[in-house]
């Protein structure tokens, strides 16, 4: 609501001067009123006025809920208090104590979900980066069909997440899916039709689906990074006798380092927080082996309606992500300055 009213003064000012009118009349109306305010003050205030709508919305939807979430994590916010949280009694640190008590059912399942998420993130980020880099490097220079390939590779990224993931869940069906059809009927690699969406295989199914959906992002950014490397560098090194491998190792990859720093961090944060892929692939109950942390918190909050405990887990997740991001930025920046 705040959003729709704040930008209006600017818009009105614009519509007040139709294109046919003399160019000078546009600024005059509001200018006369504003003339009462010293010019310097106006100059100083304008940028703040311009970012005000964005600030208000960020506060409302991100900052305030985050603070509320932290407060909730110290409350005994069970289903009895969801509609009237002011009555919820304080829980002290109890929500946190349960979450990190790995002998309790809640704590041990959170730990298991965390381990699964770490393994998933390492593999998924690694694969997305590897495929993205390989495609970006091999698509350097121009050849026939390059534009078509680029469009094709970007399509999974443009597709709404649920549409792509639903298709994979059909392909992973035990009896009517394409994957088992290839593995069992056509190639005979396996004798029995395995289940892909329950049990241990669900981790593989999740990984394949996720990489299919997200590697185009790595490709997109790395391709732009590769294009930004000056041709002079390659020409100069070719005169010095450097071959393709040498150029890849000594020019392309080092020049991509700043891009890689951003891509890997963004991929890490997206992957660690991914909710859409497991939610659409498995429905509301993800199998233990593919129980990513976001869906774990979601389930344990909305199944038990214990929002206090869910909030405590969210805060722990945030602290972990902040810690990893800080360590990562310090480590990669130091390496960059040393190089």
């Amino acid at each position, binding site marked *: 609501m705040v959003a729709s009213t704040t930008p209006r003064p600017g818009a009105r000012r614009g519509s007040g001067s139709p294109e046919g009118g003399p160019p000078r009349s546009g600024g005059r109306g509001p200018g006369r009123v504003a003339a009462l305010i010293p010019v310097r003050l106006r100059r100083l205030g304008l940028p703040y006025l311009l970012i005000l709508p964005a600030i208000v919305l960020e506060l409302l939807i991100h900052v305030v809920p985050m603070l509320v979430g932290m407060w909730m994590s110290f409350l005994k916010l069970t289903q009895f208090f969801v509609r009237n949280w002011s009555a919820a009694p304080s829980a002290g640190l109890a929500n946190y104590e349960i979450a990190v008590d790995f002998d309790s059912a809640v704590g041990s399942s959170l730990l298991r979900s965390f381990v699964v998420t770490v393994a998933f993130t390492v593999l998924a980020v690694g694969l997305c980066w590897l495929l993205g880099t390989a495609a970006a490097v091999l698509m350097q220079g121009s050849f026939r069909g390059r534009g078509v390939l680029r469009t094709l590779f970007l399509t999974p990224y443009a597709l709404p997440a649920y549409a792509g993931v639903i298709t994979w869940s059909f392909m992973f069906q035990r009896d009517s899916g394409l994957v088992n059809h290839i593995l069992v009927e056509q190639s005979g690699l396996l004798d029995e039709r395995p289940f892909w969406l329950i049990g241990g295989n669900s981790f593989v199914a999740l990984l394949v689906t996720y990489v299919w959906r997200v590697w185009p992002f790595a490709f997109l950014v790395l391709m732009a990074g590769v294009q930004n490397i000056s041709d002079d560098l390659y020409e100069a090194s070719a005169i010095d006798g450097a071959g393709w491998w040498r150029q890849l190792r000594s020019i392309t990859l080092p020049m991509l380092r700043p891009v890689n720093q951003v891509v890997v961090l963004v991929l890490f944060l997206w992957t660690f927080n991914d909710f859409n892929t497991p939610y659409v692939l498995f429905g509301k109950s993800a199998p233990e082996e593919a129980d990513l942390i976001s869906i774990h918190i*979601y389930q344990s909050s909305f199944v038990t309606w214990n929002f206090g405990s869910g909030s405590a887990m969210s805060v722990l997740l945030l602290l972990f992500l902040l810690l990893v991001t800080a360590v990562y930025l310090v480590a990669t920046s130091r390496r960059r300055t040393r190089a």
Partner: protein
Amino acid sequence: MREPRWLPWARWIVLGSLSLFTLLPLYVMATTSIKPLGDVQGDFHWIPTTISLQPFADIWRTVPLAHYFANSLIVASIAAVASVTIAIFAAYAISRYRFPGRKVFSVTVLSTQMFPGILFLLPLFMIFVNLGNTIGVELYGSRTGLIITYLTFSLPFSIWMLVGYFDSIPTALDEAAQVDGSGPVGALLRVVIPAAMPGIVAVTIYAFMTAWAEVLFASVMTDESTRTLAVGLQGYSTQNDVYWNQLMAASLVVSVPVVAGFLLLQRYLVQGLTAGAVK
């Protein structure tokens, strides 16, 4: 660049495998959508036994798809336009002014993009529910609640991309407009916005896609009357059976608007998405 002799082979093997990997689900989605129900219940068939357009007719009856479609369209359009409007003003301030707090603002806004959605979900749910109970503003289950939430999701990226676009427009242009008597806002509206139009359209498409594809908040914050496509598509799986042919047909139908938009504006989107990361 000098290429070793094996490189063209390596190129076609790697890019060929990646094409297959990318195409396989797209092929399955397209062919399954024209299969009769019998074809999708037994063993998988690469080629439909008979081609049937029946799924495309059935999808509108099995679930109220048109209704979900309209909800998604309303929510995503309003969120995208509002988000880009707000982002234009903020990006103009960041691109053209040096003011105390500029850096803090940019970093804070961008970092909220990185926080897990689940972190905001529970508190926002509680805030929306309790706002309805105490002051009667029904945001929970309403389109307004969803629109406000979605527009903040695309806001950080929109601002970031637009700052890149605005930076590439020479300040001499808006100074000339200001000499002509337009205020700074007049210069923004008459010079900067028209010059950055391709970027603005690309950002709008991006914001639309973000809202169109969102699942987590849609699954919690909507009820039957405001349900969006992201949640509504689950309606094709009943207790006993999943209408896979209809599900694929519906997935295809809901993907067409965004994929078409993305592919048409691919060039601008790629420029915008990558400008910041490469810098």
